[in-house]
Each structure stands twice: as C-alpha cells, then as structure tokens.
C-alpha cells in the first residue's frame, strides 16, 4: 500500500554508498568509553566504580528516574575510572572508561520465556532491564514510550524502516539481514500494547527490503508493509504517522495524542533480543560512509568504541576531512574530535571532504519561499529566522518556532545559504529559557 504524502519536504541526493555492503562486526577495541547518558532523560547512576571487574552485558549503571535507562558493559574487563570525556553531543560528560580483557566473558542472560503469553508489564520490564532506547537517533527510553498514560490509548504501531537521511543504510541492512528479528520485535510491541494491527514503513528506494519484509509478513496478517514515496523527512515520526494514518499530531503534542506509536526497526530488533534471549543493549549497526572514506561500510559495533576506529575500518580518510558527522547530513551532529564513542543512538558516521561540506557565507534573504515550501511542519522558516534575529522571541513563539522538528529541509533549500535551522534552534532555546523564568 502506498502511504499518503505529507506536505513539504525536500529531495536531497540519496547517496546510499553502502546500501549493498553487508554488515560486518568491528573488532572490539582495547578500551571502551561508555557515557552515563546515552538517552533522553536523567543520566544513569553508576553501580560499579573504578577498579571493579565487569562482565559483558553486566549492569553498570541503572535508571535514575522514570525517564532514564540502564547501561550495560559492552565488554568484559576492568573499569578504569568514571570521568568526564568527550561525548557526541558536543560536551564532556561523565563516562565509564573500561579496559577490555578481550575475553568477552558474558553474564548469564535470562530470557523472558514465551512472550506471546507474557504479561505486557513483564515485557516492558524486560525491555527496561535491557536498557533499550530509541535507536533511530532520538534515544528516548523505550519502556517509557511503551507505557503511555491511560488517557492516551494507542491503537496503531508503526515500525520505522524509512531511513530517509542520505548516506545512512544501517536500518536497510538490518531489514535485509535480520528481517525476522525486526518482525518479531514489532509483534512483541503489538502484544505489549494489545494491538492486532501494525505497520512497517519503508521508503521506496529500498525495494529489496520491501519485498523481503512483505514476504515475511505474509504469515502475519495483522502486519502491513507500507512502501512510502521517497521524500525527506518521511522518516520523521510526525510525517510517518501522517503517511500511515492521515492523523496530524496537534502542535506541542506527541504521537500518543493521536493514538500512535512509532519505533525504529533497530529498536525493535533490540527489543526482540532482550525478550527472547535476555540480551541487553551493548552493540548496534553503524554506517560509516561519506566521500572522504576509502570504503563505506556497515559495521556491527560495540557501544563505547571510539569513532576513529570506525573511520579506520572504513579505510581511513582519503581527503583532508572537512567534517565528521554523527548521524546523517541533515540532522546529524558535527564532531570536533574523533575520540567520541559510539552510543545507542549512533546510526551513522559521516566523513565528508571539503567539496561536500564547504563553508559558505550566508547572503541576504531574497524571500524566494523555498524554505516555506520545504517545511514539513507548515512553518515559515524565513519569518522565524527574521524574528529571532530581531530578538522578538515572543513573536517567534506565536509563529510556532517550538513546532520545528529541526529536519533541515529549509536550510537545504535556501539559495542564500542562511543558517535557518541554527536561527530556529536559537529561538527555541530562548523561548524555553523565558518559559522557565516564568
């Protein structure tokens, strides 16, 4: 079934350089750096300290609140220390530094058992225990997402296999190589929410994945594969929900406000591993790509691996590196050091040369409207940028600056290379700060 189109959006070149490269595991490094915060919400509280021996999969930090997540050791070895280290978010945050003893000595995994008969509560607890968070990049703790308040019942669940960002192929490869894990994960979530219907959204530029998933869901009549037209940001949850159900989330609202729940296919595979094998989240698929690496690859990486090792595994940088981005080119975060580790939300590593990431000075706005046409949320980025430039944050709020999903469609289309997303982010930060002040 073809999904409905959302308004706006742009067509950046797909550049799926690594789409046909099978996932291969990256050798586990000698030392891993595991941040206490790889998720939205309160950082986890350490339960081990410097000097302690740890096993692979052992709980090393626990949730410190409702919206928080557990953290498990991705290697076996000794905790060297807990200290501030460079984090992909761009600042130094407390991290475990663990020396790997190379043995991969794992703790005993305790699977839940027969999940079709398990209680939803038990399933959610298993997901919580495994430290699972949204792996599409947002890193929202999954057990919280699966426990919406009773006044917002869910009637639709959508697996997000859209992967609309250029260059990234980790979800694509996951669906091609482990379709059963993804499907089982989706069915587990359907069991948790008590639903018999679910969707899997995949963009039409992945026909092999669509065909394969359709084959797999043939035995499960409740699950339907949606082949979605290629347009960025189809994979953004608001746009995906609209494509699947034609429901629009109200301003300031969440998917649960329209009875929907979206989960990345990577998260679903991790959910399946947690429930069926009792395995905690310690590794993920990362696409290492870009015109500046010798060989774009998809790697299965242990969390905490410094990204310079991934760049090496892709053959190293072939041209002077202009930019290293954690994530995709539209919404990823530029890194200022290659010492940062892979975290739960690191879907990709993009190494770009000066040609792909030129420094262009912003020109004046010619009011061409490309940003307005491109905005998937129906905002007017040019107006928002103008209001923020004039420090008129009250007006910016009135014009919907908080509704921006920071997808980058506006900046992508701007012929004057105005840093629209930056202006809008600035505006959002100021509006939130003023709200806090009261």
């Amino acid at each position, binding site marked *: 079934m073809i999904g409905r189109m959302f308004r706006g959006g742009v067509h950046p070149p797909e550049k799926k350089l690594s789409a046909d490269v099978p996932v291969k595991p990256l050798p586990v490094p000698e030392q891993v750096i595991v941040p206490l915060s790889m998720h939205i919400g309160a950082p986890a509280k350490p339960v081990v300290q410097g000097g302690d021996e740890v096993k692979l999969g052992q709980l090393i930090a626990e949730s410190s609140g409702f919206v928080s997540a557990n953290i498990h050791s991705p290697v076996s070895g000794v905790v060297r220390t807990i200290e501030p280290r460079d984090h992909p*978010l*761009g*600042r130094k945050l407390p991290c475990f530094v663990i020396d790997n003893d190379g043995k991969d000595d794992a703790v005993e995994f305790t699977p839940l058992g027969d999940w079709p008969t398990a209680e939803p509560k038990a399933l959610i607890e298993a997901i919580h225990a495994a430290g699972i968070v949204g792996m599409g990049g947002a890193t929202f703790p999954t057990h919280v997402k699966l426990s919406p308040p009773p006044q917002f019942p869910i009637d639709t669940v959508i697996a997000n296999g859209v992967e609309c960002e250029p260059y990234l192929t980790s979800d694509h490869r996951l669906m091609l190589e482990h379709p059963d894990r993804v499907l089982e994960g989706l069915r587990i979530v359907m069991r948790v929410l008590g639903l018999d219907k679910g969707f899997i959204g995949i963009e039409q530029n992945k026909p092999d994945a669509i065909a394969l998933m359709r084959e797999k869901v043939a035995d499960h009549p409740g699950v339907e594969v949606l082949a979605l037209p290629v347009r960025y940001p189809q994979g953004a949850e608001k746009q995906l929900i609209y494509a699947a159900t034609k429901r629009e989330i109200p301003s300031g609202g969440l998917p649960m406000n329209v009875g929907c729940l979206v989960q990345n296919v990577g998260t679903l595979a991790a959910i399946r591993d947690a429930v069926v094998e009792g395995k905690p989240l310690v590794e993920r698929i990362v696409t290492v790509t870009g015109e500046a690496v010798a060989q774009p690859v998809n790697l299965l990486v242990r969390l905490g691996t410094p990204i310079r090792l991934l760049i090496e595994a892709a053959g190293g940088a072939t041209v002077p590196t202009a930019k290293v981005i954690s994530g995709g080119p539209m919404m990823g*975060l*530029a890194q*200022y050091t290659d010492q940062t580790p892979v975290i739960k939300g690191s879907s990709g590593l993009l190494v770009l040369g000066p040609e792909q990431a030129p*420094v262009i000075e912003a020109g004046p706005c010619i009011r061409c409207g490309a940003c307005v046409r491109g905005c998937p949320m129906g905002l007017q980025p040019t107006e928002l940028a103008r209001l923020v430039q004039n420090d008129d944050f009250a007006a910016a709020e009135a014009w919907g600056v908080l509704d921006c999903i920071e997808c980058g469609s506006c900046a992508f289309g701007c012929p004057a290379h105005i*840093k629209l997303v*930056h*202006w809008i*982010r*600035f505006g959002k*930060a*100021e509006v939130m700060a003023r709200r806090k002040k009261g």
Partner: protein
Amino acid sequence: MLTAILTLTGVGLVAAIGLGIASRVFAVQVDPLVEQVAELVPGVNCGACGNASCNAYAEMLVAGTAGIDECTVMSDEARAKIAEILNIEFTKTDKPTAVVLCQGTTAHIQLKYHYDGVPSCRAAQLVAEGYTGCDYGCLGLGDCERVCPFDAIHVVDGLAVVDEEKCTACGKCVDVCPRNIIELHTTNQRVHVLCSSQDKGKIVRGVCDVGCIACRKCVKVCPVEAIEFKDNLARIITEKCIQCGACARACPTGSILDQGGPHYIAKINDNCTGCTLCARKCPAGAISGEKKLLHVVDEKKCVRCHVCYDVCNFEAIALVDEQGQEMIAPKPKKKKKKAAAPQGAAS
C-alpha cells in the same frame, strides 16, 4: 450679529457643560509628584530597574514600591533631587560598572573547531557548547555589544571590552551573556581576576595563555586573605580587598588585572620618629622597628598598598620603584594652623 454671537456662545456652552460632566465621570487621579519624578528619571527605558518604562518606575518611586538605588543609570544629582521631592533618604553609593571576566582575545586562545554558524554568542553556545577551547571564555560574537543601550561594550579582537565611562551598570549585558562571565562590580574595586575558567590548571594551560591555573600564588601573597578559591578559580572578596595589587604581580599567567596603580615600595628615611603608626597599620607586617627608633621596611614583604605612606605624619616615607628610584616624595606634614591673634591689643 446677535444671532451669531448667541449661536456660538450656545454651542460653546453645550460643549463646556458636556466636557465638565465628562471630566467628572472619567476623572483619573494623576499624582503631580509622579510627573515631577518622571521628569528626573533618565527616560531611556532600558529596563535595568526591572520595569518596562521609566514612567512606570517613576510611579513606583512615588508609591514607595521601588527604591532610588534601583536605577543605575541616573546621575547622583537626579537621585538627590528625587529624594528631596519624595522626602526620602539618599545616600551616595559607589558607581558600579560591568566587568568582563575574561582576557581571551584571539591571540590568547585556542579554538575547539572552526565555527560556521549564526554570528551570535547565544546561538554559538548551542553548537557543542561553543567554539572556544575554553568552555568559559568570551565567545566574542557581540550579543553584549548589540544589547547595550549605552554603547558601552564592544568586541575587540574576539573579546568584549567595557568602556567604564559610558557604562551605567544597567545589567543588560550581564543577562544576555550565555556564559555568564560579565559581572557588575563597583568602580572602587580596581583589581579583578579576569578569568572564569573552572577547569583544572593543566586544561587551562592547553587552551589559553592568560587563564587562571589555580596555582594559588595570589592567595599566598595576599596580606588580608581577600582571595578565595572555588572550582579551580581565584575570586577576590571585594569587601576585604585593599587594592594593593600584590596578587596581580604574583600571578604567573597575568590573569589578575590591576587597574589601579602604579604601586610602589615604601622606603623610610631619617625623618622617622619611631611613632610605630606605620608598623601597626601595615597589613603585611613588613615594617619593623622599636618605639622612638628608626623603622625599616622589608621590601620583600611590602605589598605596595601605600597605607603607611598615607598615615605617616613625619614626611618619613617615600615611595620608590624596584630599582630604589624615588617615584613619589614623602607626604608633606600637615601644617598646624596658627591660632588667630586676639582682636585688638589686650589692654
């Protein structure tokens, strides 16, 4: 003719009566005091007092819900006049000024990365906590310069610099700085630790050559314990500081700035009568001597605060430079006033 006069008078009367009634019905109490005070307030509407407009502030002054110290822009004369009108007490306060606690010009600092974003400090702070190698240093993109209503702060070589003459301490720059490194100090405080870095010395050394490396040399030389350490950063306790500048001289990186001065070493000459006043007043205990005998200044201990120079009544203390050259001659003795001759000759 008569009709014309009568008609006009008639219309005028109707209008007058109508307005008279209306003025009663729609009467608004306007305190004449408010108008008087409103004339004296600056009228810039800068918002330093926390009110939206100078008129609003004037109303609050008259109502007694605001104090005359809240407006830092008013001159002392205006303040005194308002105090007179409103019959309230007026005490002269030290004029405050904004101080940027950083010396990180582009020549001194390292950068974390090349920043290609919006030219605003608050916006730059959102990108990996800012592009300066030091997470606490001035970003130099001019948010403070743009927000200042008095043209008193400018970015020069990547560092914000305050023009003390123009600064009225309205506080707008303090609020807008995303790293909170601008503070308001009284102009009497001449010595400042111009660094805001809370990083350990090793890290500071790697990113800035004028940062505080927490070596604590300043604490050692301060004669009055006016420097404390918090989060790897030296802080001067302004209530205790005697403005001698010893800390600034001792600081190995130059992160403490002494805007007062110059400061010289005290040297006692033969006029000394041994009154011991200087020895007692010296905060560093640098003067020694017996009563009624010549006193001596220990050059190494002297913090150059000039207190002894000020208190000596015998022209016995000169101020010399490090080579011993006299820079300031001893203070002349106070001339005793001769008693006035009695009027007329005593008979």
